[in-house]
């Protein structure tokens, strides 16, 4: 059958390239394998060239991008592994299944490098839940899917972010990240190096679910999206738990495992081609040995199925017998397995059906999709712009602050994280709601801070600054709990790359992130790119949504900080300068902003580095009792959150805040980067230390009382902590329950 009749995702150029390179016409099975491998989701053909811009090395980096997980040294003989995944398209159709299989996928990647998953992070974007029943439905079921899967597998979901914006109405974004821990030297890579080694497929059986899932994720959502239901994979966290327990036991027992790879996008096709090409070898596989869920599957279907909960082990031939240590452990946990083939010296993927060869392709072909140099053009209007819902001026500072605190973007996400088991594993020291980032204890006596951030409104107005801003914000969040940022994984999400305006936005965002990371000294150890987040029916693209997930190291328990105001009488400080940068802010979503104040915030990595170092220094010197960074909703929200968390108010003098803004609403709600609020008992010592640091700072008030009082030149706005808390905590439950 000719390629053109097969409904592949490949372009005419790609089809021609394959024919030229092979010198013949591939058969149906071979076309499907190439289609899966060359899909955007698997091959990164639209982004690979640009991803080289990221800084990927550093003294702690053990493994950079290009593997199943990034790996960083955390000291004491241990390494942390990181990976981020997205399941945007499946979640838009089947939010429960899509989100839970997203968790399943990211766990598998962390497990496949032989590390134990210790934390999950969820970063979600939906349409406006206060306007759209559809978005409420997606939100509810995505959270339930993540909860059911993560809770069952016993890996805590410890941090996250939820953003609401009109542009995500049809294309919700579901990003999930996972952090793992392993002993240095215990890692296993996804490569088949030795001819003669055997290939063992373990875990769930192979069915028709998710066939062509990778291709599905590499195209815009169709109008009749529900018909794509078969493209969504089916989750089974119980089998995943058995895989996890059995593999970790195998690893701990010291058995030799030359290679391990999880089966994700593109199924068996991608897994086999990647282990072969990374190992410089080939494979010879008999598909009749694959355990099937449905009896009449064709070789093509078997090769492209994305049935979940499957891993590929590369084992020495001797380990494939039922007496081997590996097999005994798999059987103890009732983990199904089958030996499906072996590693060969000849670097081809030879796939057989009942002995007969049904596919024979060079391993290098399927992994070297030609890169696509898409044209780019600066858009006249920001990508993903929505109808503005802002109007007029607030009647008072109180009204502005309460409005913002009770808007879904800012309001407490307790409704979400209360559904996630965030304590299992007994490593959680700072839990959701307590601090800017999660903090977990590590087996080496140190602690790991974890946070993921994005801001699509900033990124839409100014992709370069907005993307850099995500990194800045994630770093600040890690620093606020006492962590020194050591590594980052990123995710860049956009619409259709064939649209030059979308592609321009993508390039700018990538450049912004790369430049910031380089200047800040933060290595990028992995990441993902997700295109085609667009709706064919409405032609609507999402706001560009770069995400940064940062991990930081805390050497000692005494340096762990949380955001709640701790004691009446303590002095409140602000660090960093506030500028009139209300573009894309929470304030500008509700109220009109003066022309001069509408720029999107631009982070300065040199300034941020100095400020972060200063905060960590103050923490180390024991001068600080609470720290919070300023981000969504600016200084106003930061102060309110510290008061609500501590159950105590503060008397603040806004005229003391270091600012170049003219209006007090601008000072209070601008989302300028590089700012922290902190409190401490020894005002003199803090002032002395801050003067030495050279960072702009000021004492702006004192902790105490039952209200947050914000004094301006003309009077004071007073908000009772209990009232703020009721609105802040009640906003989302009122919409969802």
């Amino acid at each position, binding site marked *: 059958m000719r390629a053109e009749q097969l409904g592949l995702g490949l372009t005419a150029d790609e089809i021609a390239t394959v024919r030229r390179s092979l010198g013949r016409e591939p058969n149906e099975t071979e076309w499907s394998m190439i289609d899966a491998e060359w899909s955007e989701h698997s091959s990164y053909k639209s982004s690979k060239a640009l991803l080289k811009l990221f800084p990927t090395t550093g003294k702690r980096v053990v493994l950079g991008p290009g593997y199943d997980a990034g790996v960083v040294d955390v000291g004491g003989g241990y390494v942390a592994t990181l990976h981020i995944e997205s399941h945007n398209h499946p979640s838009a159709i089947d939010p429960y299944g899509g989100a839970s299989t997203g968790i399943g996928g990211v766990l598998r990647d962390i497990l496949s490098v032989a590390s134990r998953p210790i934390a999950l992070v969820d970063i979600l974007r939906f349409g406006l839940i206060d306007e759209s029943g559809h978005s409420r439905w997606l939100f509810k079921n995505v959270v339930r899917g993540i909860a059911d899967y993560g809770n069952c597998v*016993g890996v805590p979901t410890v941090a996250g972010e939820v953003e609401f914006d009109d542009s995500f109405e049809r294309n919700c974004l579901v990003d999930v990240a996972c952090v793992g821990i392993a002993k240095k030297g215990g890692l296993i890579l996804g490569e088949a190096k030795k001819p003669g080694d055997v290939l063992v497929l373990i875990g769930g059986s192979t069915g028709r679910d998710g066939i062509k899932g990778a291709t599905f994720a590499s195209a815009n959502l169709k109008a009749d999206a529900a018909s794509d239901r078969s493209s969504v994979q089916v989750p089974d966290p119980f089998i995943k738990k058995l895989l996890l327990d059995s593999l970790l036991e195998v690893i701990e027992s010291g058995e030799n495992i030359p290679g391990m790879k999880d089966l994700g996008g593109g199924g068996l096709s991608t897994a086999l081609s990647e282990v072969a090409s990374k190992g410089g070898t080939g494979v010879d596989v008999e598909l009749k040995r694959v355990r099937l869920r449905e009896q009449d599957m064709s070789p093509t279907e078997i090769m492209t199925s994305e049935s979940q909960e499957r891993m590929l082990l590369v084992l020495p031939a001797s380990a494939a017998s039922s007496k081997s240590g590996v097999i005994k452990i798999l059987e103890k946990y009732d983990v199904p397995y089958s030996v499906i083939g072996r590693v060969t010296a000849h670097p081809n993927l030879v796939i057989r059906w009942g002995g007969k060869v049904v596919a024979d392709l060079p391993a290098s072909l399927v992994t070297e999709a030609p890169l696509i140099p898409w044209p780019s053009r600066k858009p006249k209007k920001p990508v993903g712009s929505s109808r503005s819902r802002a109007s007029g001026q607030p009647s008072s500072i109180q009204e502005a602050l309460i409005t913002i605190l009770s808007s879904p973007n800012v309001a407490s996400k307790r409704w979400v994280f209360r559904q996630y088991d965030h304590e299992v594993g007994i490593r959680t020291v700072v839990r959701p709601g307590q601090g800017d980032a999660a903090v977990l204890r590590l087996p080496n006596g140190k602690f790991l801070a974890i946070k993921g951030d994005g801001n699509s409104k900033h990124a839409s107005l100014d992709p370069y600054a907005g993307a850099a801003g995500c990194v800045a914000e994630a770093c600040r969040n890690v620093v606020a709990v006492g962590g020194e940022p050591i590594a980052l994984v990123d995710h860049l999400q956009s619409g259709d790359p064939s649209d030059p305006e979308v592609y321009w936005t993508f390039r700018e965002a990538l450049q912004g992130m790369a430049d910031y990371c380089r200047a800040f000294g933060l290595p990028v150890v992995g990441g993902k790119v997700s295109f085609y987040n667009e709706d064919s029916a409405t032609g609507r693209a999402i706001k560009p949504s770069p995400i940064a997930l940062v991990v930081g190291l805390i050497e000692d328990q005494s340096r762990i900080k949380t955001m709640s105001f701790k004691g009446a009488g303590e002095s409140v400080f602000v660090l960093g300068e506030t500028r009139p940068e209300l573009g894309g802010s929470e304030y500008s979503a509700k109220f009109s902003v003066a022309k001069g104040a509408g720029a999107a915030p631009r982070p300065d990595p040199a300034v941020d580095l100095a400020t972060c170092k200063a905060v960590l220094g103050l923490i180390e010197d024991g001068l600080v009792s609470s720290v919070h960074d300023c981000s969504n909703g600016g200084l106003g929200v930061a102060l309110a959150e510290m008061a609500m968390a501590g159950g105590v108010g503060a008397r603040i003098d806004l005229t003391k805040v270091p600012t170049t803004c003219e209006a007090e609403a601008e000072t209070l709600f601008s989302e300028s980067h590089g700012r922290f609020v902190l409190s401490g008992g020894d005002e003199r010592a803090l002032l002395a230390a801050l003067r030495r640091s050279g960072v702009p700072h000021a004492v702006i008030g004192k902790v105490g009382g039952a209200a947050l009082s914000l004094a301006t030149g003309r009077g004071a706005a007073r908000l009772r902590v209990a009232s703020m808390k009721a609105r802040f905590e009640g906003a989302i439950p009122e919409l969802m329950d």
Partner: protein
Amino acid sequence: MKVAVVRFPGSNCDLDMVSALRTIPGLEPVLVWHEDAALGREEFGAVVLPGGFAFADRLRAGAIAANSPAMAKVKRLADRGVPVLGVCNGFQVLVESQLLPGALLRNSGLKFVCDWTHVRVENTTTPFTSGLRKGQVLDLPIAHGEGRYFLERPELERLEKDGLVAFRYCDEAGRPTSSSNPTGTLHNIAGVCNKEGNVVGLMPHPERAAEALLTPLGKADGSLVLSSLLVKRWRGGA
């Protein structure tokens, strides 16, 4: 004292329980795979059934595990008076094995709830509460979707009269209010014990509160529950 921590396929708090028990001098936790012969062979001073999703909670939480050979062994040990503790999924298994009365139904909010709660100690005669005071308020976390205790009215009244409620959700001051009840569980019941007093089940996780570092207020109340095992050595155990 050797304490067996039983791991079923799908248990996910077993390693946490082993780790927590290890922090208590005098207790030697042993992780026992459910099919392991050690469960019937070795001398254990106590058995713990940890939290998780044994057998994926298929049919009903705890239902399949209750029918396993491992539970037949645990029943025999319980009959001899060996202290048995069921935490969360472990409590569900004990109820389905009929070592404890009642049933644990789906939370009335229909959602999984992970949060810190206050629980009041109601009965201090069991091996897991003998180190506590009646009325003492503990801070312990819960994390479950099916923790709503149920018994029909007459049986429930009898349970209360016989003093078989071990823990009750309450507010900071020890009052069992409706706002301190996270799941709609009847009478704010968080844990119960059997008539003989050696088998205790509770939904909150003491192993997650055994170290001050891991608790929001720096109180290691879970440790008080687990170390009660050493306060009064049970006649039946080693």
